[in-house]
């Protein structure tokens, strides 16, 4: 079946003026490795914002009801729940440590009072239930208030326990653990629009799961060659179509995207569509293969387009056109001549993510020096902004930044050589309806919002 999108109509993109709203995380410059943010995701209403970190923890922020006394302040996000999702494990058979780092979090659409999310590390996916408790029972017949059991001989009457209000408690409990299905490292999970299944992808395989069933998964894509010496490409990301429950895409390290239809066959090794842009021969270098590797793929909310991120650019593809993208945006083209240095310091392997705004008119992705970039598709405009503690006064408007690629550096511009490559923004998220964005620096989460008129 096809789910109809009932998205609330968001405010038009227009002239966005981004303001600082909040920053979460330690101010310390000395970053503890466990605190490094590894994923950021809004839920379907935008009320909840989840982050995962290298230490295996998940922190969920909740948007508070708008402060009526200060109308210029939009709703703030405050900590709602924190829990340890994954622990480090050891695979004794292979003598390998399995990192607890949370690679991805994906929310399930809400069906009842509780919230559900999937979180995954390299090997295991877990379904977490986050529920609120704001009442507790009082007046047990067999127990005292402190929990001790009463002497049955002292019980003379019978009463019905009553529920009395208590301070809100948010509990997270693991409801399902989907383990032992991936030989290689999981890079993606994606919930299907059928609300029953989801996929998980590692370097060579994609598995289909039923949310209720943990002891079985169905392998739908397998690109492992019979002889590993012949390996030429790996799967880098995968996602279900937002509306068609039979369709998903996966991207590769070679810069291709394959769209698969699960109705065509049980094993989707043969793609329905192959999206690939021929390489510009003038750009050929040692590192062409690395920079063409796709680090993220995201469908637009309306399901008509998909966006891919490779090292230097963001590309928008029309699902009906396979031979080239319809739009290409250069994120930091000035790095093309620095690829050798970026290879030496490992930055060339950084995996940047990308995201759409609510109405698919603007896309966003991160860069270095804590810069992040927005591309307004309709107005053909791009913007570079910075997430930094210096620009973090309440409601401070962010000034657009500019990198000077060469030649004479103008005032307020930053030269390429001054960029801090340790400060990278890999993970960004856009509220599904409003112009509120969450941008993760190494260990801080910045929340920015469009200036309210």
């Amino acid at each position, binding site marked *: 079946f096809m789910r109809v999108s009932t998205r609330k109509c968001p405010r038009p993109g227009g002239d966005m003026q981004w303001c600082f709203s909040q920053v979460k995380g330690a101010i310390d410059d000395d970053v503890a490795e466990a605190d490094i943010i590894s994923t950021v995701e809004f839920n379907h209403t935008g009320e909840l914002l989840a982050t995962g970190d290298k230490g295996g923890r998940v922190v969920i922020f909740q948007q508070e009801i708008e402060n009526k006394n200060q109308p210029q302040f939009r709703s703030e996000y405050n900590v709602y729940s924190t829990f340890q999702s994954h622990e480090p494990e050891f695979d004794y058979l*292979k*003598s*390998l*440590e*399995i*990192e607890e*780092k949370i690679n991805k979090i994906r929310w399930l659409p809400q069906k009842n009072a509780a919230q559900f999310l999937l979180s995954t590390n*390299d090997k295991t996916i877990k379904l977490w239930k986050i529920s609120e408790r704001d009442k507790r029972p009082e007046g047990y017949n067999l127990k005292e208030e402190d929990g001790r059991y009463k002497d049955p001989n002292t019980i003379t009457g019978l009463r019905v326990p009553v529920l009395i209000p208590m301070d809100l408690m948010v509990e997270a409990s693991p409801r399902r653990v989907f383990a032992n299905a991936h*030989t*290689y*490292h999981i890079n993606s999970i994606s919930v299907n629009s059928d609300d029953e299944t989801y996929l998980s992808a590692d*370097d*060579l395989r994609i598995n289909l799961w039923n949310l209720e069933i943990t002891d079985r998964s169905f392998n739908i894509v397998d690109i492992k060659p019979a*002889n*590993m*010496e012949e*390996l*030429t*490409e*790996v799967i*880098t990301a995968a996602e279900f179509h937002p509306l068609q429950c039979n369709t998903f895409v996966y991207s590769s*390290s070679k810069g291709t995207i394959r769209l698969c239809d699960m109705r065509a066959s049980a094993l989707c090794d043969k793609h329905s569509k192959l999206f690939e842009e021929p390489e510009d*021969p003038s750009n*050929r*270098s*040692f*590192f062409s*293969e*690395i920079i063409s*590797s796709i680090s993220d793929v995201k469908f637009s909310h309306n399901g008509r387009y998909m966006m891919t991120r490779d090292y230097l650019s963001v590309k928008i593809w029309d699902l009906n056109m396979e031979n080239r993208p319809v739009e290409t945006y250069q994120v930091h083209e000035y790095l093309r*001549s*620095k*690829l*050798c*240095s970026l*290879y*030496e*310091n*490992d930055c060339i*392997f950084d995996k940047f993510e990308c995201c759409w705004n609510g109405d698919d008119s603007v896309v966003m992705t991160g860069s270095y020096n804590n810069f992040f970039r927005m591309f307004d598709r309709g107005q053909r405009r791009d913007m570079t902004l910075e997430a930094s503690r210096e620009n973090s006064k309440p409601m401070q408007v962010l000034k657009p930044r500019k990198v000077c690629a060469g030649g004479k550096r103008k005032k307020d511009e930053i030269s*390429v*050589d*001054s960029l*801090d*490559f*340790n*400060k990278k923004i890999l993970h960004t998220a856009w509220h599904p309806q409003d112009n509120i964005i969450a941008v993760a620096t190494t260990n801080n989460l910045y929340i920015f919002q469009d200036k309210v008129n």
Partner: protein
Amino acid sequence: MSATTAMEVNAEARRILAVSISKLYASRTQRGGLRLHRSLLLSMVMRSARDIYHSSRECEELCGAPPTSEEAMETGPVEQTVQLPEPLTEPRQPAASAVEPPSEEPDSGDEGSDGELAEDKENMSPTRQSRKRRGKAAAAPDFLPSKRARLEPGEERHAALPTSCRAGAGESLAALSLNRVIPAF
């Protein structure tokens, strides 16, 4: 390509090869195990560097003549080495002597059942005088593996490299055996 450019290209290719090998080596001790994607990308860079290295060496040999005007290079291995500033942390590079050539020996069953590159103390130092028989072309770098048994289709056979690494039939750097680089699952 002039002789000077060929020399620069040669040096650049060697440098990239050395960097790549040390990265491959370092990734073995990484938490979470070897990453297939990263290993694949590293091997691709090494393959390109090796190809450029060999073609530039050939050119070097041919162009003994005084340097002509520089031509634009199709492949751009000679990239500006940008002095990226302090904040950039250089990766800790293991000493050259500890670098293990990534190619495999198909016959070495003792390579480790876990599939990881076994330490080969005998050949650890690339600067050591090789005790193995030397091949015809003497000048090739000794950190490159010697085995050239398998060639890509259409590839010319280049002069054999000195066998500073494990001797015997084996594979070229191009056919980098990922099932040795990547743990066997």
